[in-house]
């Protein structure tokens, strides 16, 4: 059986195709102006990679911000359920998924079948989302992908106390003017980020094992800080954390077919 999952977010879109329970292709693209466009572009890339066409897909589940606008999807499921499902499938011992994306942050609790048990989400405040890192990286004049590695050289992390990104930016600027070590500033930024995420996590509590997904999962320094704060080590994903939602969606597509066949 061939199924697909399509995740259309606000910054990126992903598609995953599975055959008989294994991933045969996956793609990530930056979003187009319209979600329908993002969905078809990323899906077509994934299909092409797998050497398949739309007709080959028996069931497609869409998820993400634009999930209701995907014409080729048979059904849509929240990105919350999909992230939880996908992460737990990748790492069966996972019970808590911390998804830190570009625009939002979700903490998802699942059971041993990847079923959603509870969740909490922050999608209003930039602090605690990738946006925060983006803003700070800009002030520090580094690429967002450098924030993590750079911080590893830090010896004395600076303290960024402001919760509001606007004021935090000033704090960072202030440290830059004071010629503080970039590594120390980067460490401060990552630490502040981790603090905001950890606060959200505590609203719903954790159960081991945990894993961190979403774009920010690629920042090793934030991950390290978060692990320290939560006193638990996060399982590492073998795949790009950004495709976890689409994986979950395709798993749900599989289930939909199994349920139909029953």
């Amino acid at each position: 059986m061939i199924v697909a999952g399509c995740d259309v977010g606000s910054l990126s879109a992903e598609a995953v195709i599975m055959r008989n329970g294994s991933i045969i292709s996956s793609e990530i693209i930056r979003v187009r102006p319209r979600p329908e466009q993002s969905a078809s572009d990323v899906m077509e890339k994934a299909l092409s990679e797998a050497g398949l066409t739309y007709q080959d897909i028996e069931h497609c589940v869409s998820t993400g911000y634009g999930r209701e606008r995907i014409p080729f999807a048979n059904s849509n499921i929240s990105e919350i359920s999909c992230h939880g499902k996908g992460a737990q499938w990748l790492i069966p011992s996972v019970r808590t998924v911390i998804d830190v994306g570009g625009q939002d942050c979700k903490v998802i609790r699942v059971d041993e079948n990847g079923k959603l048990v509870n969740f909490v989400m922050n999608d209003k405040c930039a602090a605690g989302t990738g946006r925060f890192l983006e803003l700070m990286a800009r002030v520090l004049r580094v690429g967002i992908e450098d924030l993590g590695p750079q911080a590893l050289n830090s010896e004395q992390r600076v303290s960024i106390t402001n919760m509001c990104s606007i004021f935090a930016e000033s704090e960072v600027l202030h440290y830059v003017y004071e010629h503080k070590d970039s590594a120390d500033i980067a460490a401060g930024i990552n630490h502040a980020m981790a603090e905001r995420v950890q606060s959200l996590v505590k609203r719903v509590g954790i159960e081991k094992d945990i894993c961190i997904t979403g774009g920010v999962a690629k920042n090793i320094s934030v991950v390290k800080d978060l692990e320290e704060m939560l006193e638990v080590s996060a399982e590492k994903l073998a795949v790009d954390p950004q495709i976890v939602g689409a994986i979950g969606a395709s798993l749900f597509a599989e289930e939909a077919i199994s349920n139909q066949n029953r």
Partner: protein
Amino acid sequence: MDRKPTVWEEVAALLEGVSALPEDYEALQELARSLPPDTGSMLKGFVSPKFMKMSLAGLKIFAIAFNELVKKRAEGKKVVFRAFNFPPELLHAMDVAPMCTEAAGIVPMMAIGGDRFFDAAIEAGLPETLCSGHRPTVGMILDGRELQPDVIVNAGPGSCDANAKIHEYMAKTWGIPLLNLDAPYYHDERGLAYYQREFRRMVSRLEEIIGQKMDYDKLREVVENANRATELMLEIQEMKKAVPFPLPNLYGVMVQLMKYVWAGREETVTFFQIAHDTAKELVEKGEGAFPNQRVRSLWVYSGIYYDMEVWNWLEDVGVIFLQDHFGYFPEKLIDTSTIDTMLDGLGERCFNMPMTRQMKGAWDAPYGWAEDMIFLARELKADCAIFSGHLACRQAWGSYRLLKDKLKSELGIPSFRFEADILDRRITPISALKDKIEEFVSTIA
């Protein structure tokens, strides 16, 4: 000790050296340097270098209060939490370990830091827009750093939903008896009578729960102290009309410590006596407490408490902190003839505590916010009003515009406002506030 020390124990230990301090700023600075940075900052923040005697009289109370709490708790006394807008005198007359809910969290926060205590309450499910006044306390209890109270007296109803609700939350969550004190809408004879009945009922319940009836001699001792302190305080209030201003900015903050935590105790009388004598001397000489007094500011709601060094800084830039709404105590002396006269007197005092007095009714009610602030602005010759804009304060934000317009039309004085959380330093940095204050001042000095 098997368990983590509570914040009281930690603070009490840190402040041990305070009681022995001589009246020497150098000595204080040395002590501050020997302590963790947050504690050191706090010590310096509560001290006006030129007024060591007064400052130490106030600072010592922190040390005494926390030590006493720790001791009483160890003796098995019941811990009674009450919000700031409640006269501590009543509880000092009973054999309990009383604590002001807000101070129980805020003072340790100042002394040992811990921004994350603000968040612990939110992590437990409370709204993040809830007033930060009580969140450190709740956060510390959740974290096991603060002992749960045994009784909660809820003085919030009527004047502040958030205050009242958080006390209800604590009582419910930890299975603690909740004694509500409902403040009526009107500040008149009928309202006072209603409130005094509420107050008496609350006292009876308290006596039942603690298993102790009010003792006349003990109550009288406490109320007599309170009366002496009140007399001095009211005289000081008169002296504040003087130009130049004869008190350090910190007086306006210390008076709150006295009234919210230690009223009825000997040390409070000592503090007010020193402050009184200090002010009197300066008034007689026609001198100000600090030079270069450019602007007399009335803070119509609260001050800023997440960086205590701001009070001395304001003096450096020539801004006088006449006082804020939380430091206004227009009270009467209490008749000590019988337990009844004293309890009714305390009930009336409670009725007039800041926020209860001003915020339970209409914005322009007699004895309400607008009337009190205009009165103070006029009496104390304010050049401007400042609204610190505590983000969670619905009543103040909801009538600030009206008050500002009235101050302008009746007294011709300008009002300035910030947007900040008065306790959580992570919202608006102190540097931003200082910039704004300097900007305001430059437009009127």
